[in-house]
């Protein structure tokens, strides 16, 4: 017992000593030197959400590299340190702390999983460091406005949900609407916002089905859907689950018009679901398709992506493009902040963006009270032979 007491006392002393290390004084402007700007970036690079994470990194890095080759921003090159958040809050907080405390970055970019971002929020606010994201679509990120968080790219989940709900009710004018959603944060936001919208329109959904990420069998849910036979089913699921589900639906003879959310708008869904995906409609955040190479911006994006990352079936994907777009917005704000770069100036620079048109997506406008830059999403329909087409519908979510 004596040795344990001594050992514990020793541990206590060591731990206290570690704890009492003073934190180094704040540098003038962390992350900014004469010729570089140090930016920290996060994405899930390990674990189940790696696809989106890799797209985030590759798409954004394509743009950053392109800018650096053209001379940088106001004479400084951008150096981006990518850290993995594994889509888990604990890891996300650790990554953000490392970037701020050890690497002393100037600003933060990226993030795909909203839970990791929200967990790290207190750290960001304490350090007064700016974080710009294109992917994290959770509504609380910009509503209420957080002084250091900005987003442009994916619309907040509530708007996404309302867009597809509106499409069903007002555009397709159907009566029987069903909802099929995942039990995770994304799916639940969808369900709640669709329900809210439907209540406003005095429409009752005829079915609300849930599933868990990773499920393989949807027979029960589909059989129930078959009973009520909805005209439209709004679905908020991840790619592999949706692909399995839709094939099973076809087999069981459940054939409503499927209107899906963001993830299913990506090409792998159409590939995996095959024929079953034909005729389904999904959200698409851009004005143009990835195949619209007649549009100069799209062509440039593809060319740069191919040069720096390389083409593969399914890449570049929507995820790549949205982060390329996001990087463009981020770089523009950095440019506007001028040569005398400080964190406050960056925030003002962001807020000064009005109708900044990246020529890929809807123009971006920020202000003191609005930190989400671009509203408005499009819808895309999947055609046979892996073709797709943008629908000519303009939907205003609110």
């Amino acid at each position, binding site marked *: 017992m004596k040795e344990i007491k001594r050992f514990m006392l020793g541990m206590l002393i060591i731990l206290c000593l570690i704890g009492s290390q003073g934190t180094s004084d704040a540098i003038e402007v962390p992350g900014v030197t004469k010729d570089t700007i140090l930016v920290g970036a996060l994405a899930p690079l390990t674990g189940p959400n790696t696809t989106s994470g*890799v797209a985030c990194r590759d798409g954004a890095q394509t743009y950053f590299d392109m800018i650096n080759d053209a001379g940088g921003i106001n004479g400084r090159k951008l150096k981006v340190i990518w850290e993995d958040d594994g889509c888990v809050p604990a890891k996300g907080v650790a990554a953000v702390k490392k970037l701020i405390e050890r690497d002393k970055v100037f600003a933060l970019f990226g993030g795909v999983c909203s839970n990791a971002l929200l967990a790290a929020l207190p750290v960001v606010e304490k350090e007064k460091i700016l974080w710009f994201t294109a992917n994290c679509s959770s509504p609380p990120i910009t509503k209420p406005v957080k002084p250091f968080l900005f987003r442009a790219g994916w619309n907040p989940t509530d708007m996404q949900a309302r867009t597809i709900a509106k499409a069903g009710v007002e555009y397709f004018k159907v009566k029987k609407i069903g909802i099929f959603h995942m039990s995770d944060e994304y799916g639940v936001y969808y369900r709640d916002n669709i329900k809210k919208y439907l209540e406003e329109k005095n429409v009752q959904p005829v079915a609300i089905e849930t599933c868990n990420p990773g499920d393989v069998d949807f027979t029960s*849910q589909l059989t129930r859907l078959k009973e009520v036979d909805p005209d439209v089913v709004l679905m908020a699921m991840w790619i592999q689950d949706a692909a399995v589900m839709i094939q099973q639906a076809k087999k069981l003879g459940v054939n409503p018009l499927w209107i899906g959310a963001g993830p299913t708008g990506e090409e792998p869904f159409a590939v995996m679901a095959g024929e079953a995906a034909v005729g389904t409609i999904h959200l698409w955040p851009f004005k143009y398709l990835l195949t619209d190479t007649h549009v100069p911006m799209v062509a440039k994006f593809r060319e740069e992506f191919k040069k720096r990352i390389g083409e593969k079936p399914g890449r570049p994907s929507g995820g790549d493009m949205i982060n390329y777009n996001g990087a463009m917005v981020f770089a523009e704000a950095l440019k506007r902040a001028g040569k005398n770069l400080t964190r406050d100036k960056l925030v003002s620079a962001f807020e000064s963006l009005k109708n900044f048109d990246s020529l890929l997506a809807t123009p971006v406008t920020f202000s003191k009270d609005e930190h989400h830059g671009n509203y408005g999403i499009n819808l895309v329909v999947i055609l046979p032979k892996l073709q797709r087409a943008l629908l000519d519908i303009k939907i205003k979510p609110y």
Partner: protein
Amino acid sequence: MLRLAQLIVDGTVLGGTYAICALGMVVIFKATDVINIAQGELVMMAAFFGFTFRVYFGWSFTPSFLLAIGFIIFLSLAIERLALRPLIKAPIWTNIITTMAVLIILQAAARLIWGPEPYAFPPYLSRMPLNIAGIRLTHQDVAILGTSIIYMILLFLFFKYARIGKGMRAVQMDKEAASLMGISVRKMYSYVWMLNAILVGTIGILLAPRLGVYSTMGLLFIKGFVVAVMGGFTSLAGSIVGGFLLGVVETLAGFYISSTMKDIVSFIILILILIVKPTGLFAESVTKRV
């Protein structure tokens, strides 16, 4: 009525896959006392190997299938030899955790080699649904169910009549006695893992067209463990019955109660079975009333 039949049939197809996974785990456990947590990952690797041969190299189905099984056998033997053989004398928990480490390694390796995206595996049979007496099945479903049943029959015959099969049973019953009788226990360990490889390899490739191929698909097969325990970890028949039972119960519960309750119901049924019969449905009774 027809709806009920459709649900039961779909549940049975699902259950068949659970049963095969469970069988593999039980076979390994009975011979080596190791619970293979990485079972699902082996299924995943089989799907990826099959995918590589079928899509990257463009070969037709049968050679892809056979070669993929071959690779999985090789992989399983490697795991047995490199990770588990050195731990033969180690406490049992270390072995189980080692299979967990194998799980981590296999997932990481899959992501490194093939990337994290989900891939589509082309179906080898027509996707048009069959319509048998009003019940809709795809050719795939029939193949899965059929293969499951054929394997179960083959396993039964194997254990009853084949020399290696009987050797495995001997090792399962009493390692020391078996080795005294001249059966190489180490060789049996290898054979058991090879057998498991064939079982899970087939499942992986059969399910790939339906599920797609992606690095986290192994997690689905935790249900295999559930089924194995349900049936009593020591009984093969138990795994089979348990597998079909779970598949059907899940599907029915999901329909009649609610999709949220689907999983809860399965676990509740499980707990009830354990309370009533703590050693599972069919376990050889090891009375230990204390």
